[in-house]
């Protein structure tokens, strides 16, 4: 009888600890979720600089998933758009769905050395037949637009911000 009571008490203690742990975890999760700032897509470019390497939440419609790598998404709204990258492939079925993403803000600095590297890569891939004439010219224009922007803003670099995927949920 004593043994049965002992086993029951121990079992209750374990269950109670587990429940407490679970509650603590849930509470921690709730606090963490509450602390993650939300950035509207329209204000993302303007505010992302304040959140580099920090987690933020965004929401929008998945315009498309990159068909080459499958690891890049263009998230859009009436106000703006951003790119979200991931280490795993995204499900292409997300296209056209309203999704809330959590992700880490990543800054990419475009400067003259970056433009030169892009130019070199563009010429190399075109000479190897990896890109056609149209793609080659489009990339050239794209690089020139960076240079024009740097001149217009009188700066030596442009900061581009993307989001590194953490998690997502479908908005019904």
């Amino acid at each position, binding site marked *: 009888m004593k043994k049965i009571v002992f086993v029951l008490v121990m079992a209750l203690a374990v269950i109670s600890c587990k429940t407490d742990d679970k509650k603590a975890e849930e509470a921690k999760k709730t606090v963490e979720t509450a602390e993650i700032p939300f950035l509207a897509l329209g204000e993302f470019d303007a505010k992302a600089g304040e959140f580099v390497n920090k987690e933020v939440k965004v929401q929008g*419609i998945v*315009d498309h998933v990159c*068909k*080459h790598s*499958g690891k890049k998404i263009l998230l*859009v*709204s*009436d106000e703006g758009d951003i790119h979200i990258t991931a280490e795993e*492939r995204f499900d*292409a*079925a997300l*296209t*056209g*769905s*309203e999704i809330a993403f959590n992700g880490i803000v990543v800054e990419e600095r475009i400067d003259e050395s970056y433009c030169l590297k892009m130019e070199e890569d563009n010429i190399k891939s075109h000479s*190897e037949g*990896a*890109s*056609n004439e149209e*793609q080659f010219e489009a990339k050239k224009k794209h690089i020139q637009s960076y240079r024009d922007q740097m001149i217009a803003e009188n700066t030596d670099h442009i900061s581009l911000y993307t989001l590194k995927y953490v998690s997502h949920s479908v908005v019904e």
Partner: protein
Amino acid sequence: MKNLRKWSRILHRDIGFFFIGTTLIYAISGIALNHLSDWNPNYSVENKNFTTEINLENNASVKNNILLLLDEVDNKENYKQHYYPNAQNLKIFLKGGSSIMVNVKNGTGRSEYLKKRLVFYEANYLHYNPNKIWMWFSDIFAGALILFSITSLFMIKGKKGVIGRGGIYLLLGIIIPILFLVYYL
């Protein structure tokens, strides 16, 4: 040596039969994915142009008007989402990955219908390791390919084997990637 040759043949033959399906999956999707710049290996794309009189400007009744448009050009049951990339254009997402772009100022539009390519879609899906079970299976397949390479060295004896014509093919198969690396790397 005789025993090694015998077992090489048995393993090469039997495991080879087992992996014929998997080899075809990776070969078909490999060619398809090698040419991503030239085509969409997962979907065939059909474009249709249209014009509409429906007012699709961004206002309170736009959702109803979009459904009216879909009844004209597609089916309103296919509606998924919409947004305005700019003041002039409206993009409507349909179920199944298709979409419609409409110029709300002049009513001209273009539908892009995606249709899954039979066999290619499924083969490409598997090629990209959709989950851990397939990842382990494809690792076993990769191991089998290594086994095929090794067993092929011992299967045939004489002038058609590795010390004869087979050896020349073996060297050529190694030299070609090395030359490529020397030239491009």
